[in-house]
């Protein structure tokens, strides 16, 4: 069954510091584009004779499948991470304090990791690490880099398509806008889910 495009999880007219044009372009071109690519790849894979296919065809398609699938998953989380300004709820706040020292220490690390990826591509993810039973900030150089077994609950897209329309090369201002626009209720819900299954 083909993957279906999910509706935009945030209201693109109500994200402080990001224009509707930026968010809609990001959603239509990059997110929807990833889902379409994923479906095209899935179709090719379904028709592939794995036993006899050349290794570069198998490697190429499976690599592109991973990239497109992670792009889909992470973009959905990214749009769900955006909303109006707010604060983490008590349970999430306590966990951030336990795992990072304070909410502001977590935020300083997370935003610095985003700014360090200016001019390139990648993700910064707040991820539940089942191994450590804690939250970690995870660096990703592209869609395919994720912590094995980790559950991302907040995603900052540092691909340049996430900000160039509004901010040009000013990635720092984009990261600051993102930090102020985190949809904490959604993050808290995602945290509750992963913490319950832990």
């Amino acid at each position, binding site marked *: 069954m083909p993957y279906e495009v999910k509706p935009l999880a945030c209201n693109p007219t109500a994200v402080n510091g990001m224009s509707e044009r930026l968010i809609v*372009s990001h959603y*239509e*071109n990059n997110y929807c*584009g990833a889902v379409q690519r994923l479906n095209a790849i899935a179709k090719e894979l379904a028709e592939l004779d794995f036993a006899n296919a050349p290794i570069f065809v198998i490697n190429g398609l499976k690599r592109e499948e991973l990239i497109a699938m992670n792009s889909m998953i992470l973009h959905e989380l990214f749009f769900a991470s955006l909303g109006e300004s707010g604060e983490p709820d008590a349970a999430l706040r306590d966990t951030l304090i336990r795992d990072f020292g304070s909410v502001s220490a977590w935020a300083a690390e997370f935003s610095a990791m985003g700014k360090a990826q200016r001019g390139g591509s990648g993700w910064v993810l707040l991820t539940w690490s089942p191994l450590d039973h804690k939250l970690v900030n995870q660096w990703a150089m592209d869609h395919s880099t994720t912590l094995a077994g980790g559950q991302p609950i907040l995603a900052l897209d540092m691909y*340049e398509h996430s900000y160039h329309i509004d901010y040009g090369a000013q990635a720092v201002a984009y990261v600051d806008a993102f930090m102020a626009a985190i949809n904490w209720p959604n993050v808290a819900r995602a945290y509750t889910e992963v913490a319950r299954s832990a």
Partner: protein
Amino acid sequence: MRYKIAPLFCRPWTLNGISPRLIESHYENDYGNALSSLNAATAELEALDPATTPAALIHRLKRDEAALLNSTLLHELYFASLGGDGRTLPEPMAQAIARDFGSVKRWRDEFIALAHGLAGGPGWVLLTYVPRDARLINHTTAGHEQSLAGGIPILALDMYEHAYHLEFGANPAAYVAAFMRNIEWDTALQRYQNAVKVEPPPRLIQKQFADIPSITVEEVKGMIESGRPVQIIDTRPRHYSTRAHEIMRGAVWRDPERVDEWIGELSKAEPVVTFCVYGFHIGCETAVTLRKVGFDARYLVGGHYAWKAIKGPLTLLDDTSSSGSGPVMQRIRPEEPLADPQLE
């Protein structure tokens, strides 16, 4: 500061469909940031004592240094790739591209397709001269740090989104078309002409066998597949072949120490190919011996392992042939299928 900034090579106001604003942001922010970070990483590395610094720290800094240096070099090449009309290829450039890609159109279609394949993700599309094979190739990179080993890029298309998003948004196809309309081919030709002066990496030369004709494994495979007669003799030393399990299909093993005993099986009317394990001495010496008495003998470059490396067909080496008392010289006939590269 080890690395100095290079001035913008192209004139931004002359570009067709790419605005000065985009080039200025790209030059100042992306190229400029790469260069200043490169200098910072280099300074940090110079201040360290590699003998006592934790290896992990050196590793991190060197990885960043390589990515930043490549970003610097490729951005300079990118700005130098722009400023022309994209259409007018100097004759030697058009000839080189037609030679290596079939036609300029085919090169162009492939280059554009590679760029479209990078849409929405970062990377470079490069036209690179490969000295090993003395030819041009198009290739992509998934980041600044990748490059073709020993290759010399002569044309660079930046597919990082900072190269186009400001002006083209999420429409990389329009950006790629604009890039193609602005390629500056005259300086690309200069870079190509400089690149072709780079010699291929030196190959193995065996001076003592310099005047003995050799043959490559590809040539022998071609002879076998087209049914041309050839007598192929595996002359791996006895101590080696008694431990070996497989032999080139179509070859027979003969003891290089006892040429006199089997030379009578050979025909002077058809070429002889001799080889040993790696192609260094024994196969060559056997060819010398055979040539002295009038055989058209050549040694196989790279020997048994070069044949294996091109996935040439093999057959099991049985005890009789390894003992040297095997069947008389088998002759390869065109009706014998040899396309299957698997061990039989």
